[in-house]
């Protein structure tokens, strides 16, 4: 289970006018006891989150020794950034990251949507089926990576052998050691791992579709597709936006699957941003460059985060208006 789990849609009760008029400081003082409840959480978050962000930005402006003895770091301004942006591998890795993120998100979402719609109706064994489909999301990505690595094995892999037996290939295919098939093969694993997240989010979303509206549409002669497109889908728009954004963030930040299955290889064909950053920092000890890379990633995530917050608050506004 990775970072995609927090599909947060929460409603904020509107503040009263009196609340707004009172001075901020006096209100903060009046409510000082309330902060005690949040304080433990806040302290932990500050230490482990705020400090690292500051630190990364700072480090990105320095040339650092491999030993990470920070007394010896040299200020070099934005040199690390120019190093990254002018390197050929940067654009290759970025392109691969985009492909990885786009196709993983697209198919995870579509499979999840299909499953959610098909499971929405009551039938015998529905609970069991839902549980089985959720298992990939629960098991660790490490386990998933090893199992798929074995399935893809160039000599004894089950998938290759099955394709030969079905006459789809002449000999076992070398899925992950070939620069053309490695990335798509890993995307399949990623989709396997996370489609059920989209499924469960959309199943929750489907419960908000008013039953009466669907029945009314049916009485008015709308067919199944029209009912989906004009009634169900608009109600899913909010959940879908949040789900897609969370999937995008999680995919952009993927590490385990490419790292364990190929380590970014062969010939860098499955290198994505995160594996690249990890390699730069912990493999080649170029801490400053890795930090600069992280800051760039951070900026991208902030942009996605902006849309995420907007999607969330828009849902709130709609509900407040309704």
């Amino acid at each position: 289970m990775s970072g995609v789990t927090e599909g947060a849609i929460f409603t904020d009760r509107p503040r009263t006018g009196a609340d707004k008029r009172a001075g901020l400081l006096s209100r903060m003082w009046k409510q000082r006891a309330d902060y005690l409840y949040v304080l433990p959480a806040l302290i932990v978050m500050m230490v482990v989150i705020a400090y690292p962000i500051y630190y990364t930005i700072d480090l990105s402006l320095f040339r650092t020794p491999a030993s990470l003895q920070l007394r010896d770091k040299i200020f070099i301004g934005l040199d690390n950034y120019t190093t990254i942006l002018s390197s050929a591998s940067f654009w290759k890795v970025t392109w691969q990251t985009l492909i990885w993120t786009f196709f993983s998100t697209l198919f995870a979402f579509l499979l999840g949507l299909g499953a959610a719609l098909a499971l929405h109706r009551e039938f015998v064994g529905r609970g069991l089926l839902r549980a089985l489909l959720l298992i990939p999301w629960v098991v660790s990505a490490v386990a998933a990576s090893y199992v798929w690595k074995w399935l893809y094995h160039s000599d004894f892999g089950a998938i290759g052998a099955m394709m030969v037996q079905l006459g789809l290939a002449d000999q076992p295919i070398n899925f992950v050691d070939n620069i053309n098939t490695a990335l798509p093969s890993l995307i399949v694993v990623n989709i396997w791992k996370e489609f059920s997240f989209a499924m469960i989010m959309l199943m929750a979303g489907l419960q908000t579709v008013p039953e009466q509206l669907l029945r009314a549409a049916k009485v008015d002669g709308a067919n199944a597709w029209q009912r989906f497109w004009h009634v169900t889908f608009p109600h899913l728009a909010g959940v879908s936006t949040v789900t897609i954004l969370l999937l995008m963030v999680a995919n952009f930040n993927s590490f385990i699957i490419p790292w364990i299955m190929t380590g970014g290889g062969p010939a860098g064909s499955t290198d994505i941003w995160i594996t690249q950053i990890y390699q730069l920092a912990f493999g080649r000890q170029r801490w400053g460059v890795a930090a600069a890379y992280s800051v760039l990633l951070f900026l991208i995530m902030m942009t996605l985060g902006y849309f995420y917050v907007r999607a969330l608050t828009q849902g709130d506004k709609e509900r407040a208006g309704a």
Partner: protein
Amino acid sequence: MTIATADHPVSRRPIDGWRWAGRIFLTLLLIFTVMPMIWMLITSLKTGFAAMQYPPQWWPTEPTLGNYTRLLDPTNSVGQEFLRYFWNSLWVSTLTTILAIVVAVPAAYAFSRFRFPGRTVLFFAVLLRNMFPAVIFLVPLFILMRWLGLVNTHGSLVLTYLTFGLPLAIWLLKGFYDNIPIQLEQAARIDGATRLQAFLFIVMPLSTPGIIATAIYSFIGAWNEYIYAYTFLTRHDQMTLPVGIQRFFSENATDWPGLMAATFMMSVPVVVLFLVLQKYFVRALTEGAVKH
């Protein structure tokens, strides 16, 4: 699609075509989902020799539990290490879960009930945390842990997992608190209970399902975590399962049945936990997403 219904005049609904499309889709999806797990199990029952066959033995000719007994036998080195990793994972995950609940419960309650200035900002900050990839935090946290003297200890993992699990934990619990009518507490307050008493004796018992759900999420998250454990721990006796497993088999990378057995054992606790407590797990997500 209408042709299908024409063939079945007895059918009650005119949407059978969609229903069949749904069934076929679900069947294919189920195969896609379950096949890797089945192959993992089948492989784990093979000897090293039987696994290295082409074409593969779709069912092992001589199924054996040898891989499992080897992993669970503390008298040989493989079993000893495996059980140590297992124990480390259990310890780290349990400690993280308990601490996450202790810290998240008051915070979630405050976010749900109180109207202190800045709570919206704080809450978004909490949620946005998860927008940032682990790698961004890796180097600074590594240095921080070195400074705190926590490198190669489970403390570094517990502290990290705790922070990264908190946003979700708080959000989940807040969803549950939002659904507990505030009038219950007000009634208790009128009857003379303090705010803390009302919280402890009225709200807490009602939010037990939420706490269970949050605990499962925290536990599974900590159990499955890889990147921090991979970076912070270098001593073999401290490693957790996801990292330990890798170390173990990279030396004799050909032992696929052993690896599959270890992978299976690693997945058992979280899958069982999930299946047993599934209703809380699913409900927690649903409550959050469907609130009006």
